[in-house]
């Protein structure tokens, strides 16, 4: 298993795209965090350190991480190196496990680096722009997330991106589908459901990213949001893995 991890580590960091996307992620995280501090609160109230540190759970930041997540399988299929990988490591379950573990490590390191950037941003922000009282501003709406929630949500989002790439064997779809779902499609479904006099509420209640965001921002009226989101993440991952095990390389 160590060899699998070393292989994945070298695969990940030997292409420039990983470095670029990580850098862009940190820049966007810093800019989004700096916005409310330098441009005024926009009526949301005083920002807190907790609110500032939940910035990198925003979808705009996570898209950058999901690009790297999709590359775990997307580059392999696009350039045919999956055949080299599977010749070297014929046990496919180990390949999936190694990629998942390394994805977890990557997201953790990137998130911590993001917090470091936000810490720097907060330290140079105008005096008084960060308070210690009040709820602070969550960039996703609702309450700011706990740090562990930011980390778990980021990882879960990337697992969905990686799993969709396993299913579609298409790098672009692995990046675009979660983004479209979270930013446009789920919003449209909620809109149409509102016109259906409650007949489509069960669909709204089951939407993956709506539930994920509800869990992330601790919405009190959706106590099962975390479970529903976890079910979506697990289901997508299991389907993707099953297809990876079964299909020809």
């Amino acid at each position, binding site marked *: 298993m160590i060899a699998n991890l070393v292989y994945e580590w070298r695969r990940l960091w030997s292409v420039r795209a990983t470095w670029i996307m990580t850098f862009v992620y940190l820049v966007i995280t810093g800019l989004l965090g700096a916005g409310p501090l330098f441009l005024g609160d926009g009526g949301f109230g005083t920002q807190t350190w907790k609110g500032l540190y939940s910035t990198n759970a925003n979808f705009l930041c996570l898209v950058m991480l999901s690009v790297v997540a999709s590359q775990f399988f997307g580059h392999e299929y696009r350039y045919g190196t999956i055949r080299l990988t599977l*010749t070297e490591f014929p046990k496919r379950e180990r390949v999936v496990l190694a990629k998942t573990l390394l994805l977890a490590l990557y997201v953790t390191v990137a998130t911590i680096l993001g917090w470091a950037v936000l810490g720097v941003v907060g330290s140079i922000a105008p005096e008084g722009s960060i308070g210690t009282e009040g709820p602070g501003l969550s960039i996703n709406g609702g309450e700011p997330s706990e740090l562990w929630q930011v980390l778990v949500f980021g990882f879960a989002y990337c697992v969905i991106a990686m799993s969709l790439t396993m299913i579609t064997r298409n790098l672009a779809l692995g990046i675009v589908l979660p983004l479209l779902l979270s930013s446009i499609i789920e919003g449209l479904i909620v809109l149409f459901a509102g016109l259906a006099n409650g007949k489509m509420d069960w669909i709204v209640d089951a939407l993956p990213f709506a539930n994920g965001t509800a869990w992330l921002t601790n919405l009190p009226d959706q106590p099962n949001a975390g479970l529903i989101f976890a079910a979506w993440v697990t289901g997508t991952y299991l389907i993707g893995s099953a297809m990876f095990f079964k299909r020809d390389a």
Partner: protein
Amino acid sequence: MRIEARNLDKHFRSVHAVKGLSFTVEPGRVTGFLGPNGSGKSTTMRLMLGLDSGGGETLYDGKKLSSHHPVTRTIGAHLDAKFFHPKRTAYAHLRMLGAEAGISKARVHEVLKLVGLESVAKKRPGGFSLGMGQRLGLAGAILADPQVLMLDEPANGLDPQSIQWLRDFLKHYASTGKSVLVSSHLLSEMELLADDVVVIARGNLIAAESMPAFLSRATGSAVVVRSPQSEKLAELLSSQGIASTTDGARTIVIPGHSTDRIGEIAFANGIALSELSPRTASLEQVFLELTESGQEYRLGETS
């Protein structure tokens, strides 16, 4: 290491691409894997590596590939000249592939030098020519000095010097007791390289035997005899039911017999011979004879 492919079988929806193939690849020998386009060579290789799912199994010294550890010390495969990330340098590509067997940086440099890519080790292979891609693929396959080399069309895109280098390299590799399975469309090259052949057409096994045995299958195999008494020898052979044809002055051609047999007859009857030699068909002739009906994508007539 002995490779034993047993009843390999593969369907692509309605197409039965590989039909119960069984053959062996012996250690210390180069085995050529031949077949027309679309005959199932690449699919068979993928089945042998466990990359595609299908019927049958392939055993490497009696064990499945996944039971060997490290796998890259057991087998090195090169299936396509473009299987690399275009932005990952040649050196980084090989470092990645060396992870499973713990290959050192020095070995990576050694292999890059061996295949003539040392000067572009730090270059991204996106701009490599087909021949350079082949070299990089070969470098990846031999990196861990595996017991088995499996190469799919490795000579495509190589210049004549590189082809000769590849031939010498593979012969030397096999001479150290390792197994080499190599597919190619370059039949003249394969005739010089392979000790054994596995021939398939439309997913069916046509032949799996030594190169000389395969060549002797040709209907064009014959014995050429040059003798000052060629007419007398022809009459003598005719009296024994052996047909011959005249091929210029003092030369006759006897199809379907061995030089041993004809030599014995001539010696027993006191006929002096200036030449007694086999005329074997080329690999291309035999291949075309045996696979003519098995061509998946047939060509039109040329005017």
